[in-house]
C-alpha cells in the first residue's frame, strides 16, 4: 500500500493528528518514567536482608524502676535482668534460639559509625561507614546469617557494657561487603580495625555473606551492606530480643511472650508494638514504597485507558466523516482487509510520530526528575518498551473503529451522502 494518499488524507486533519500524537507522546513520557519508578521501588523492596526471615520476631521492652545510672553496680543489675529474660525466653518450648540485640534490618532504630584501619581516626573520616549490631553468641543462629569465613563468637567472647559506654569490643564479625572495602584482597579475617575512632584495635574473626543495615532511607544507601556485629550485651533500662521459633510456631510463641516476660518480672512496659514479627517489620519498612508503586501503577493504567479512549473517539469520528469515500474505495475494488489495514497503518504512523516525540519527552522528564529527586538515569530499554506499549495500545484502540470502517458496504458510494 502506498503511503502517499494516506499522508495526503492526514493533512486534512492536522489538528486531530497532532492531538493524538501529542497525547501519545505525553503518555509515553509519563508511563516510561512511572514504570521506571515502580521498578526501582520493587527492586528495593525485594532485596534480601541476609536474614532467614521466617519464624523470626523481635521484642522491645522497657523496665519500670530499673537503675538508670552508668555506674558498674547499675550496669550489672541491668545485665542480670537481661539475662533473666533471655533464659526465660530460651526455656520456652517452641523457641529455637534467642539473642539480645539492638536492632534488626528494616527496623527504624539504628546505631551507625565508621570503621577505620588507623587508630584514633575522626568519626567522619573512617574508611568505611557501617552500622553496628550488638548481640551474643546466638545472634548468627537466631538471625539465620551465613558465615562464609572465620568463626562465630563463643559464649566466652561475649561481654556486656552500659548503653552509653564508648569502649569497643575486641572481636567483631563483619559483612563481606565491609570486609572487602577495608581489605580488598579478601583476607580480612584475623586483621585489625578501629571502630568509631577508637585507639584500641578490634580483630575481625568472621565474615558473613550478607546483612543489611536497619535504615531503608536514602541517607543509608551508601553503606546498606556494611554491617558489623559486636559480641556485646548492651545494658540500658530497655532491651530488645530477637527470637527464632520452631517452624510454624511463630504465632503461638508470640502470643505467650507477654505472660512469660511479666512472669519473670512484672515491672516493665510491653505495649502493642513490643512484640513484632519480622514479616510486620518488613511490611512497615516498605509500606510507603509499595503504596507509591501501586498508585503509580493505577495511574498508568488509567492513563493508557484514557489515551486509548481518545484514539477510539477521534478515529470513530474520522470513519464517520469518510463514510462515503470508504464506500467509493470498496466500489472500486478495495477489499475489507484493505480498508482495515488503511486505518491501522494510519494509526501506526500517528502513534509512531507521537512516540518519537515521546521518547525525547521521556528522557527529558527523567533528567528533570533526577535533578529534583534522588533517582537514577533511566535505561534505554524502558523507553523502547514504552514505545512498544503505546504502539500496541494504538493498534488495539484503532481496531474497533477500523473494523466498522471495513464493514461499510460499497453501495454507500452510489448514495448521495
Amino acid at each position: 500500500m502506498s503511503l502517499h494518499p494516506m499522508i495526503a488524507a492526514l493533512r486534512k486533519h492536522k489538528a486531530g493528528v497532532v492531538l493524538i500524537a501529542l497525547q501519545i507522546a505525553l503518555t509515553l513520557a509519563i508511563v516510561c518514567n512511572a514504570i521506571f519508578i515502580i521498578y526501582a521501588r520493587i527492586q528495593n523492596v525485594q532485596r534480601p536482608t541476609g536474614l532467614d526471615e521466617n519464624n523470626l520476631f523481635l521484642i522491645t521492652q522497657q523496665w519500670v524502676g530499673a537503675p538508670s545510672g552508668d555506674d558498674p553496680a547499675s550496669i550489672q543489675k541491668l545485665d542480670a535482668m537481661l539475662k533473666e529474660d533471655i533464659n526465660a525466653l530460651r526455656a520456652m518450648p517452641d523457641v529455637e534460639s534467642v539473642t539480645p540485640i539492638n536492632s534488626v534490618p528494616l527496623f527504624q532504630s539504628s546505631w551507625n559509625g565508621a570503621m577505620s584501619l588507623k587508630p584514633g581516626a575522626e568519626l567522619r573520616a573512617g574508611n568505611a561507614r557501617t552500622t553496628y549490631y550488638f548481640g551474643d553468641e546466638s545472634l548468627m543462629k537466631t538471625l539465620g546469617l551465613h558465615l562464609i569465613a572465620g568463626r562465630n563468637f563463643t559464649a566466652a567472647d561475649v561481654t556486656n557494657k552500659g548503653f552509653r559506654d564508648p569502649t569497643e569490643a575486641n572481636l567483631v564479625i563483619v559483612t563481606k561487603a565491609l570486609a572487602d572495602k577495608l581489605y580488598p584482597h579478601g583476607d580480612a579475617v584475623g586483621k585489625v580495625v578501629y571502630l568509631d575512632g577508637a585507639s584500641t584495635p578490634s580483630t575481625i574473626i568472621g565474615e558473613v555473606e550478607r546483612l543489611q543495615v536497619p535504615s531503608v532511607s536514602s541517607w543509608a544507601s551508601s553503606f546498606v551492606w556494611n554491617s558489623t556485629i559486636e559480641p556485646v550485651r548492651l545494658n540500658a533500662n530497655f532491651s530488645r530480643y530477637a527470637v527464632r521459633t520452631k517452624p510454624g510456631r511463630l504465632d503461638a510463641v508470640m502470643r505467650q511472650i507477654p505472660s512469660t516476660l511479666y512472669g519473670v518480672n512484672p515491672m516493665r512496659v510491653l505495649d502493642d508494638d513490643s512484640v513484632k514479627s519480622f514479616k510486620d517489620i518488613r511490611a512497615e519498612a516498605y509500606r510507603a514504597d509499595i503504596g507509591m508503586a501501586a498508585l503509580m501503577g493505577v495511574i498508568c493504567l488509567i492513563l493508557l485507558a484514557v489515551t486509548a479512549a481518545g484514539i477510539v473517539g477521534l478515529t470513530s469520528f474520522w470513519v464517520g466523516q469518510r463514510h462515503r469515500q470508504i464506500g467509493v474505495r470498496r466500489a472500486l475494488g478495495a477489499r475489507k482487509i484493505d480498508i482495515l489495514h488503511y486505518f491501522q497503518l494510519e494509526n501506526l504512523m500517528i502513534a509512531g510520530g507521537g512516540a518519537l516525540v515521546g521518547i525525547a519527552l521521556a528522557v527529558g522528564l527523567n533528567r528533570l526528575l533526577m535533578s529534583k529527586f534522588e533517582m537514577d538515569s533511566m535505561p534505554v530499554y524502558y523507553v523502547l518498551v514504552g514505545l512498544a506499549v503505546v504502539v500496541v495500545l494504538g493498534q488495539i484502540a484503532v481496531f474497533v473503529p477500523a473494523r466498522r470502517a471495513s464493514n461499510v458496504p460499497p453501495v454507500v458510494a452510489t448514495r448521495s451522502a
Partner: protein
Amino acid sequence: MLGYYFDLALRSFKRNKVLTALMVITLALGIGASMTTLTLLRLLSGDPLPQKSAQLFYVQLDPYPKDHPFSRSGKLPWLTSYTDAMNLLHAHRAEHQAAMAMTKVKLAPTTTQQHPFFSTGVMATADFFNMFDAPFHYGSGWSAADDQGRAKVVVIADDLNDQLFGGANSVGRSLRINDQDFRIIGVLRHWAPQPRFYSLYLGGPSYGKGEAVFLPLQSARAAGMDPINLMSYAVGDKQELENSASIWLGLWVQLPHAQAVSAYRSFLAGYAQQQVALGRFQRSRYGLSGLMQWLDSQQVVPDNVRLQTGLAFSFLLICMVNTVGLLLAKCLRRSGEIGVRRAMGASRKAIFAQFMAEAGLIGLVGGALGLVFALFGLWCIRQQPAEYASVAHLNETMFLCIFAVAMVASLVAGIFPAWRACIVAPAPQLKST
C-alpha cells in the same frame, strides 16, 4: 442567549452520550487526581503558625572541623550544641529565644489501672510557649528560674489530659514520667502545628498529633532524659551531653522586624567569629532562616508526595489534550448544524460562545464528579498509615479550587474546537446537506 446555548449543549450531549460521558469522566479523573494530591501538598507545605511565622527564625552554627565537615555539599549542621545554645540564649539578643530537643518518655498513670505507655516529649527552655503562641487551657508554662532550678514540673497536651484526667483541670496533680514524679503546672489547648517545624531533625514526627508532654530542659536532663537525635562532631565522651562535642538542640528566636533581624545577624556573625578566635570553631559560618524558608530549604514535604503531585498534574494535562480531541471531533461532526446557524444569521462570535458554553458545561459536570473523586482520594489517603494521613481533609479553598480548575481546564480545552467551529464556512455545508 446563554440559556439557549446550554439547551443546545444538552441536546448535543444527548446525541453523543458515550462521547460526552467519556469527556466528563476523563476530565473528572484528571481533576480528582490532581486536586487530591494538591490538597495534600498544600496541607503538608502549609504555614504551621500563620500569625507568627514571619517573626520566627532558626539559628545554625558550624562547630565541625574544616577537614571533617558536617556535609560535603556545604550544608550547615542541622542542630546546635548545648554550649552554643546556652551562650546564645543567655545573651538575650532576641525578643524571645528557646532551645529544644525531643525525648522518648514513658508515662505511667498514677490513678487508674491503665498500663504505662511510651510517648514523645519536648524538653525546652522557658520561652517555648510564648514564642510559639502555644495556648493554655489551664495553668501556664514554667519560668527560666524553674528551668535553672531543675524544678520537676510539666506541661501536658490536651489529649493526655483527656486520657489521664478526663479533661478536668489537672494543674497541681502529679504525673509519673520515666519513673519520676513531675507536677503538672499547665494544660495546653489543642496545639499541633502542621508541619511540626520545631521537631525537624530532633527526631519527632513532622505531622500528625502533637507531643504529649513538655518539660523544662534542665529538669528533663537532670531526670536522665536523653534527646532522640544526637550527632557528634569529634571523638570524645558522650556521657555528659552538656560538655560533649555533639549537636542535639534546635534553637529558635523571635525577631519582630527587619531591623531586629539584621541586628541579630550581625550578633551571630560576631559570635561565630569570637568562637573561631577562641579556637572552638574553625569556620565562622552561621545561618538564620525564617520559619517558612527553613521548611522549604529542608524539603520537609516527603518526596513521594511531591512526585505524586507532579504525576497527577501530568495526568490532568493528558486528560485535557484528550478532551480537546474529543470536543474537536464533536464540533466538526456538527459542521452542518453550524452552517445552518451561520446562514440564519448567527455571528462567528455567537458560534464560538455556543461551543465554549458546551465546554464550560462539561467542566462543571466534570468538576462535580472530580470533587467526588477527590473526596474519595483523600479518604484513601486517610486510611494509609503515613504520619500525615490524619490532616488530609478538603477545605473551602480547595473546594472552590476544584471547580475553578475544572472550569479553566475545560474552557482552555474548548478554545481550539470552538475556534475551529466558528471558522466553518456556511455555504459548502448547506450545499452538501
